[in-house]
């Protein structure tokens, strides 16, 4: 590492900051990273102000890892600013890659969201106050950033060079990414850093047929540790999810929820999984089933959007719900 240190920025939008923890989780590898980078901007860890960032020359940051979804105008502005300042822009974590869990807000309107947050009986808000766009506080005019019409992934506002999915990404992925960048051995632009295949490739379980005769929700059963969860009627997202997490949930006897997003070549994770489920659901004895039987089987799928698009709604072909005006 004789040459100049890399200028590193870590930007954030609508995030839980779990992605920050991933970087900290690099543990024994962290010193090596820190010794080769110069933290140009990292609101979570370093005291740098917006105006410091604005003052930097365009393209002066070598690498920006951006985590969190784009929910409001401030997020969008921050993303655009970092894009201008950075040579490489990486969507870091599933929120930045696909919209993530905050993306489920696309099922609601702005008003109904505020209603849920500020108006539910468990909220201590006796006066029923709700955030205003702008307010005068003393002599100051205070503005809350305007919410966008829909939650977007990072790629919804700026061009993204690489994606590192995961909720949060695996430390191994982060390590690989740093290695690649530090050694200038970069994959083609637009690539996802992670294995191309689906999770089944890493899954240690035994699979027999693939035909679901009854849908079982995860909390309704204790799954057999050895057998494929789908074979047991649990709608595991593994087949439509990128590998790379070492099947951690699966090994904990928990279905894959799809946080790594779709594997290479798949545009819409939820649609692909729905297609697969629709194909194998009730396959056995299908010819003997009545309309009602089919309907009953389908009713086993509770909250389909939450099930198939937990992490990827904003980047799917669905994107958001539409309301009749």
């Amino acid at each position, binding site marked *: 590492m004789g040459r100049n240190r890399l200028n590193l920025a870590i930007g954030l939008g609508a995030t839980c900051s779990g992605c920050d923890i991933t970087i900290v989780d690099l543990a024994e590898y962290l010193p090596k990273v820190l010794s080769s980078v110069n933290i140009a901007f990292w609101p979570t860890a370093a005291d740098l102000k917006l105006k410091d960032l604005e003052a930097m020359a365009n393209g002066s940051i070598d690498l920006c890892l951006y985590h969190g979804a784009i929910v409001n105008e401030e997020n969008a502005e921050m993303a655009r600013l970092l894009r201008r300042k950075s040579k490489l822009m990486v969507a870091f974590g599933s929120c930045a890659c696909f919209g993530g869990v905050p993306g489920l807000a696309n099922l609601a309107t702005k008003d109904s969201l505020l209603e849920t947050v500020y108006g539910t009986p468990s909220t201590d808000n006796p006066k029923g106050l709700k955030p205003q766009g702008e307010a005068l506080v003393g002599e100051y005019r205070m503005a809350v950033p305007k919410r966008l019409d829909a939650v977007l992934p990072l790629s919804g506002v700026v061009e993204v060079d690489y994606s590192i999915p995961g909720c949060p990404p695996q430390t191994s992925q982060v390590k690989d990414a740093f290695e690649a960048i530090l050694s200038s051995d970069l994959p083609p632009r637009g690539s996802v850093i992670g294995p*191309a*295949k*689906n*999770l*089944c*490739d*890493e*899954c240690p379980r035994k*699979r027999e*047929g*693939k*035909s679901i005769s009854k849908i079982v929700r995860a909390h309704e059963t204790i799954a057999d540790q050895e057998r*494929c969860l*789908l074979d047991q009627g649990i709608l595991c997202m*593994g*087949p*439509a999810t990128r*590998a790379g997490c070492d099947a951690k949930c699966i090994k904990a006897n928990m279905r894959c929820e799809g946080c790594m997003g*779709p*594997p*290479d*070549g*798949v*545009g819409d994770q939820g649609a*692909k*999984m729905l*297609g*697969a489920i*629709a*194909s*194998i659901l009730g*396959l056995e004895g299908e010819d003997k089933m009545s309309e009602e039987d089919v309907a009953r089987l389908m009713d086993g799928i509770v909250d389909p959007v939450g099930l198939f698009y937990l992490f990827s709604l904003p980047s799917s072909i669905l994107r958001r719900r539409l309301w009749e005006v």
Partner: protein
Amino acid sequence: MNDVRADLKNLKIGVYVCHCGKNIADVVDVKRVADFASKLPGVEVAREYLHMCDDVGQEMISKDIMELGINRVVVAACSPKVHELTFRDTLRKAGLNPYLLEMANIREQCSWVHRSDPDRATEKAIDLVKMAVAKARWLIPLETKAVEVTRSALVIGGGIAGIQAALDVADNGYQVYLVEKGPSLGGRMGQWSKVFPTMDCAACILTPKMVSAAQHPKIKLLTNSELIEASGSLGNFKVKIRKRPRYVDEEKCTACGLCAQKCPVRIPNEVDFGMSSRKAIYITSPNAVPLAYSIDGENCLYLKRGICRVCERVCEAKAIDFDQKEEVLELRVGSIIVAIGYDPFDPTPLEEYGFGRYKDVVTGPMLERMTDPMGPTGGAILRPSTGKPPRKVAFIQCVGSRDARFNLYCSRVCCMYAIKDSLIIKEQNPESDVYIFYMDIRAFGKGYEEFYLRSQEAGVKFIRGKVSSIREDPRTHELVLRYEDTLLGTALEDSFDLVVLSVGQVPRADTDAISKILGIPRSADGFLMEAHPKLRPNDAVVDGIYLAGSAQYPKDIPDAVAQASGAAARALIPLSMGQVYVEPISPLIEEDRCGGCGVCVKLCPYGALKLEEREDKRVAKVDEVLCKGCGTCSAACPSGAVRSRMFTEEQILSMISSAAG
């Protein structure tokens, strides 16, 4: 071969818009379509012409390929079903991979269906061309694969069509397996006595054919047998045949008939539609081929209850063999001819005619059996209720045919057989009155109109009107028919002592089973569907399977025989070629994307996919011979690893975005 990425550099697309004479050009503004296409990105040239499929049209395309370096071809013309092969050939001859062709169907999908709205038909044609061009950008060169052919054929059904097809294939020197479900060849024709319009004796012309089929060195006759499983494809089918035991040694049996005389079991004879009875050991006809008795396992006392064995005791030839077991034969054949025939329509659901309730209401086929010297009445037409000859007979045409409540199609044979039977009645009893109630008389074949005339000359009365109901007079037991003579415009009632319901042909009860086993679809009327109603009437939708006789649609004997010979000629093509080329329809499985989840494996309707174990992983693998290219796997693959070569995701998505954009 594994590279599925299209070469997007140096794209030179040629677009060719066809007038199809006036078929397209009368409605669609072909010039506007071509002008529009010429401005699309990547399009080098766009032309329109009278008939793209003719020599000049094809020459136009190959010249562009060779001179302008066109490397993707879009033809906007008819359905690819009609001319895709033609244009692929054009490309091949011009040195371009034939799969770099895309067709936009602006005839069936535009000019034909939107005749009344030329402007919008043109807009739709433009959209289709736009989408075809978008897809063409992503086309990839594909290779056909040559497969060795098993030089033998399977013929299913031993009626006149099956016999003819088997003889034609065998006479060309190839091995034929002729599978018949019943104990004898002959089929429906074997049940008829005289056949129209020549009135010759059916047995006299059928029996020699049955014998030559049975004795042909290249024909292996399998009676009491049925197809139970099939796999493979054109050139290489693997079939399983279940052969039920006859319990009589065909070689030893002399057909003396003593066994049947002594057999104590009496059941309705299906050959006579239940008008007579037969024994549990029986022969369908004295002309049966093979000429040997057969024991009906469903009804034999010994086989059902372990008692009797009378036949065994009386048989001097010692031909009875209760030790025969059911066998399952596995055969390999290169082509399959399906000639399973038809069933007569059962008129019971037409309650207004009282069939089954009134003894003297019979069906046409039942009357046919009465005219047979070997039939239940020894050839005499008699009223079932009295056993006496009828004095006044009515034929009701189109029973269950041309009737939206049952079968919408015309059964094609009923007019002629009713006319034939009317003549036989007149021959047997010139004093009798015969009326034929019809909606239209369809006498379309050679010699048929003349036959109709003969019947009119013989005094048969033709009344244009559909009989609405039949009621039996409780006192006279005569049948009272209500009808309107539509040519007179009067509603009338008249009494008859025998009523014949001219029922048509319906798909055989086992058509569904055969259609599922062979994977060949049926058309809306329930008959087996042909690959193209005009240009490929002998081919089933699946390559290598051919249709003969009434399995495809109601037919009379000349048509069934003609189609059988046609089907045989088609079935001989792969056999004599020795090699067949398989279309690159099977999906490409990208191993670096496949996680081996196995979703596709169970799903494949043809069992063409399996998981292959590798050192540390499993991947899906496709058997190209079994695959029919349906695309189910590629739609279902959750990781996008299975790709249909001719419908890649890029191709489809680009079509969608060009249509939306």
